[in-house]
């Protein structure tokens, strides 16, 4: 039996298991998927936990529920990838050989990368993340009793997964504390290493305007060096200082240590990947998908969805000795919560910036791109159901093509 081994049963790995299980000839191929955790977290839901909109039970399900029956699921930590031997090593010491390897080990926050941030007297006490379930729950507690003061929303360095999440967080915080009646007692600041509010110029202008309108102070070009955990202050390399009572930070995002130990990654443990085919640059039988790649596309579940369709095709072509198709165009499609029950929708790829228009159907919409609306907010909330029932199962999203369409947009 030949083997396709998938590393990581998160968003991308689970989708690949479903896609390939439907396509492969199970008589000659075995599919194996490996993950160290048993619980699948709906990470986009973490954004809503600090504000009490979602609780823990809204964002978790058992991973095994989403793995097809014909796929073997191993629940164990992966220690090492040995590309020269076409083999991987698991924690208990046993090895598995593969014909094709798909790496979908994602990325995670690493607070230790910033001096002082992980200090015991501050981490999850006055400085929080909301990119982990633990961080989001700790912040929910903090916000319950928060009476006012300096609330600083901060990004350490790019790239981060879901690059719009920190902005959404700031908008939602504004809305949350306004409804609580204490917005005037809170100084809300948004601190970013970028030169503007967002990575994409078009969006940056609209979103920067919105920050201003909501009374959120923008501090751009802030390159953090350290946190003074006693003074409760973040300090940049060029000695700018910002005090906080509550810091909500997105620490450095990195690929898993597994990638570093296997000597397969760049300086952030992201794997060099061919941007249109998703084949790894160094090994022709290794493919990479989702947050684990070094691609300039956004690290988002919706991107992984588009990638999964292209990669399924390419893995099938690879095992049939056919040429790979360069079909991934960097397509991303994200809702941006803007507070008070409204949201934006943006749609872009490697070459085309987010633009105004209607999506997915020209003119009639129904959802406005780069314009705030109630309907987009409902779209964002509905995404949770689409995620569990459509996305993870590797089914096409209704009306949304893999490659970006430019009709209906004002280019």
């Amino acid at each position, binding site marked *: 039996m030949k083997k396709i081994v998938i590393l990581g049963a998160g968003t991308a790995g689970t989708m690949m298991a479903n896609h390939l299980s439907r396509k492969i000839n199970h008589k000659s191929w075995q599919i194996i998927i490996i993950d160290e955790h048993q619980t699948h977290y709906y990470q986009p839901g973490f954004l809503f936990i600090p504000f009490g909109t979602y609780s823990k039970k809204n964002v978790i399900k058992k991973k095994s529920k989403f793995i097809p029956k014909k796929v073997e699921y191993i629940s164990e930590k992966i220690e090492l990838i040995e590309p020269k031997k076409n083999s991987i090593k698991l924690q208990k010491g046993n090895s598995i050989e593969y014909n094709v390897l798909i790496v979908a080990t994602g990325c995670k926050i690493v607070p230790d990368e910033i001096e002082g941030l992980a200090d015991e007297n501050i981490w999850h006490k006055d400085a929080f993340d909301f990119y982990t379930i633990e961080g989001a729950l700790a912040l929910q507690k903090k916000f319950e009793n928060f009476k006012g003061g300096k609330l600083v929303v901060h990004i350490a360095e*790019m790239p981060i997964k879901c690059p719009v999440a920190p902005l959404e967080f700031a908008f939602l915080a504004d809305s949350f504390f306004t409804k609580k009646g204490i917005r005037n007692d809170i100084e809300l600041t948004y601190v970013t290493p*970028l*030169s503007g509010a967002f990575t994409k110029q078009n969006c940056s202008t609209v979103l920067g305007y919105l920050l201003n309108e909501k009374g959120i102070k923008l501090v751009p*070009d802030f390159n953090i060096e350290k946190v003074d955990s006693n003074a409760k202050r973040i300090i940049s*390399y060029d000695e700018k200082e910002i005090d906080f009572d509550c810091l909500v930070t997105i620490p450095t995002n990195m690929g898993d240590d597994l990638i570093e130990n296997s000597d397969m990654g760049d300086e952030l443990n992201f794997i060099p990947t061919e941007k249109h085919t998703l084949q790894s640059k160094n090994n022709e039988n290794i493919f990479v998908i989702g947050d684990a790649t070094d691609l300039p596309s956004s690290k988002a579940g919706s991107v992984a969805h588009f990638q999964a369709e292209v990669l399924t095709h390419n893995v099938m072509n690879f095992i049939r000795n056919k040429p790979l198709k360069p079909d991934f165009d960097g397509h991303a499609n994200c809702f941006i919560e803007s507070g008070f029950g409204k949201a934006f929708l943006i749609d872009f790829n490697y070459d085309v910036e987010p633009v105004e228009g209607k999506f997915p159907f020209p003119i009639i919409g129904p959802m406005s791109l780069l314009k705030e609306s109630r309907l987009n907010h409902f779209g964002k909330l509905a995404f949770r159901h689409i995620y569990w029932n459509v996305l993870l199962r590797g089914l096409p999203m209704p009306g949304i093509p893999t490659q970006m369409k430019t009709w209906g947009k004002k280019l």
Partner: protein
Amino acid sequence: MAVKMYSGKEIEVNDEGYFLEPDKWSGEIATEIATEIGIVLTEEHIKVIDFLRNDFKSKGSLPTMRRIKKVGGIQTKDLYRLFPEGPLKKACKIAGLAKPASCI
């Protein structure tokens, strides 16, 4: 887009003075751009510029400060000392490369 004269050569630059033709760059030109933005080049500056150009050539994208530290062995503090106020932007400009998306 604009055209600027550096060491007697016409070079296309964008509105902010970043090179559109990295191949026309030379050490001499680097000195001229540095003078324009008030920096006197030393061996330390040249080490950064060489790293930027070589890394861009092999990867096809501009390195981040983390990469300059991890791969190029140049501390971020030193970058701020050598190219004060927006080190990556200034270093890229002197190296005849495009404008980085952020100064970090």
